[in-house]
């Protein structure tokens, strides 16, 4: 069993009374690494009710009565954004999800002690028993710092320990302090500046390593070129490296389907399992490799400190589009899948910016659209060269470009209208560069995988069953089924934009996950194994569809919110039914108008 696996063992009867310890500290002080070290990576991830801020909870290795909570980063006692609000609620005992901590571990970056000392004093002023951890002490000492922890401990009246979170030896002092418990700070504390000069006995010049790298990476031109190159590489990797594992997953699902088909009698239950659940859940699980590869890069970029630089470089561009530099990562992630993209938006401080980012995330062309694009482009766009470029490739690029431009325009319109209000402040640390800790990376990936499988999995599971019923009953053909009947009812609505009954029917199962539409088109036209046999489906489509209708279908797919899991996650992340309805509504409206315009313009041009 993996050491990452699983929640802590159920609370056993221990002699010692359970104590709740919360880690609080500014962002980028290595709090999560400390948490992972103390708990041995055995943690369960929770969500605060009402807001979608995650917290991790575990127990001190070897001392099960010490319950440790890792709280989101905090800079002062004023809430700025959902994250810091949650932290303040928990430490003041106002949270419903978590008990008031018995002890606070105030984690600061040893190398930034002077700057973070006022924060330490503010938290100590709350009167909660505390321990002060000067974290990343090894890096600070390597840079030329020397500390007198005992002097600071005497002055504050609370335990002060130096910690090097990734190493066991670097955690022994804090583990001892945790077992002994925290203390309430003395009443009349010296000023932050005096305390800092008491604790820091030797201070080096600036961080030459980080400054040197930043001269290149933050360069107004070279920095942007490097950022573009990194992003290009990440995108290539997300597609190139995922091909093999996705193939294997696909094969495993098909193998399972075949095995069950052989093992079970041909009845409704077999069809439900094979065509409903396995096909539906399988179509989502197949994206796990892409999501893991994408998050691998996101985590590496984040842990190394580069992500903040990416936000720095793009901030002004994004601000002009009504967003902020911090929206870059969520939006880029949405090209793999809008679900991790929306989840990545949690780090954004301004609720308005976060809302707009989530609202436009579905416009970034996710990988599930690719199968649909691929089939239609292969069928309708001639495979020839236009200048040095392949025409099919150009059309595909055009579809992506249309989506990005639309996304930025929608963001701008939203900011100017419904989601206006104060612009977010940037004020953001550019942390010093460091190597990502492999253990943190693995734990981070494991958590992302779990969240993806749990959320998307449960929803898709349910929807798959519902859709299976809709396409399977009543009658023997899709046309006679509920889905077929629903298709006939709504078909008049789609006739003005050139969609035929078959196209409309294929849209319905496509609601679960976009790529399902390929299979559905296959079923409608009774092409066996349409997904494997794209050429024959392409041939049928060429006969049945006009070019104008095919282009309209592509335009529809650029915009339409055809994915139940995305909508469900958007609902969770925005915590608002109204905004979710708005998102679905505006996307459908855009899709309808875009498909209609495409159809009639193509017709006018003689397609």
């Amino acid at each position, binding site marked *: 069993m993996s050491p990452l696996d699983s929640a802590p063992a159920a609370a056993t009867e221990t002699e010692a009374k359970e104590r709740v310890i919360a880690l609080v500290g500014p962002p980028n002080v290595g709090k999560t690494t400390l948490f992972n070290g103390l708990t041995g990576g055995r943690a369960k991830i929770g969500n605060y009710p009402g807001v979608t801020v995650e917290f991790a909870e575990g127990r001190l290795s070897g001392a099960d009565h010490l319950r440790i909570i890792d709280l989101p980063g905090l800079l002062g006692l*004023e809430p700025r954004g959902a994250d810091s609000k949650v932290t303040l609620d928990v430490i003041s005992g106002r949270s419903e999800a978590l008990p008031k901590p018995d002890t606070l571990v105030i984690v600061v970056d040893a*190398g930034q002690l002077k700057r973070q000392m006022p924060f330490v004093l503010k938290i100590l002023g709350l009167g909660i028993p505390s321990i002060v951890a000067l974290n990343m002490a090894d890096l600070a000492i390597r840079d030329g710092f020397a500390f007198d922890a005992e002097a600071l401990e005497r002055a504050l009246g609370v335990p002060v320990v130096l910690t090097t979170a990734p190493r066991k030896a670097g955690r022994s002092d804090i583990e001892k302090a945790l077992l002994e418990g925290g203390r309430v700070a003395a009443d009349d504390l010296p000023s932050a500046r005096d305390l800092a000069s008491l604790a820091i006995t030797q201070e080096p010049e600036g961080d030459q390593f980080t400054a040197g790298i930043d*001269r290149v990476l*933050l360069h*107004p031109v070279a920095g942007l070129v490097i950022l573009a190159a990194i992003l290009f590489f990440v995108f290539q990797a997300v597609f190139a490296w995922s091909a093999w594992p996705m193939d294997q997953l696909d094969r495993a699902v098909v193998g399972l389907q075949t095995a069950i088909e052989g093992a079970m009698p041909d009845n409704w239950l077999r069809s439900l399992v094979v065509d409903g659940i396995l096909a539906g859940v399988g179509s989502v699980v197949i994206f796990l490799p892409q999501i893991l590869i994408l998050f691998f890069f996101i985590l590496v970029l984040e842990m190394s400190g580069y992500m903040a630089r990416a936000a*720095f470089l793009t901030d*002004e561009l994004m601000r002009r589009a009504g967003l902020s530099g911090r929206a870059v990562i969520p939006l880029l992630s949405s090209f793999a899948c809008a679900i991790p993209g929306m989840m990545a938006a949690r780090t954004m401080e301004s609720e308005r910016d976060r809302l707009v980012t989530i609202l436009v995330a579905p416009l970034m062309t996710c990988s599930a659209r690719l199968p649909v694009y691929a089939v239609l482009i292969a069928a309708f766009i001639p495979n020839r060269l236009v200048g040095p470029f392949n025409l099919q490739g150009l059309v595909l690029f055009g579809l992506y470009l249309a989506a990005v431009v639309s996304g930025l325009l929608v963001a701008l319109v939203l900011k100017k209208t419904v989601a206006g209000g104060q612009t977010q402040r940037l004020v953001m640390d*550019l942390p010093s560069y460091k190597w990502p800790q492999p253990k943190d990376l693995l734990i981070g990936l494991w958590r992302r995988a779990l969240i993806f499988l749990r959320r998307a999995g449960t929803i898709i599971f349910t929807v798959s069953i519902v859709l299976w019923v809709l396409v399977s009953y009543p009658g023997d053909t899709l046309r006679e089924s509920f889905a077929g009947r629903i298709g006939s009812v709504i078909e008049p609505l789609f006739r003005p934009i050139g969609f035929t009954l078959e196209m409309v029917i294929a849209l319905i199962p496509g609601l679960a996950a976009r790529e399902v539409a390929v299979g559905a088109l296959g079923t409608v036209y009774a092409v066996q194994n349409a997904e494997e046999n794209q050429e024959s489906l392409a041939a049928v489509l060429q006969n049945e569809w006009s070019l104008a209708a095919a282009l309209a279908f592509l335009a529809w797919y650029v915009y339409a919110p055809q994915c139940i899991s995305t909508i469900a996650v958007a609902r969770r992340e925005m915590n608002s039914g109204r905004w979710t309805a708005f998102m679905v509504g505006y996307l459908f409206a855009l899709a309808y108008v875009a498909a209609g315009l495409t159809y009639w313009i193509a017709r006018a041009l003689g397609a």
Partner: protein
Amino acid sequence: MSAPIPLPSLKNGQKATILALRGEDALTAQLADNGFVPGEAVWIVRRGLIGGTPLAVQLGRAVIALRRDEALAIEVEPA
């Protein structure tokens, strides 16, 4: 002694000392929480391509990104 100027008026790499924070309370409180307090030494490391914003500001051993409007709230005295 040089005259006080807003932080964005510094040249890249020109060292200065923070004199005061002026502006909206929420902004000055946030800047103070980030360590921008009178007496600290600062200089500008890099500026963004478009409109010279945001600014990467060296503050002690930290580098902090500020938009131009935010940095205008910091009054400095060039060294």
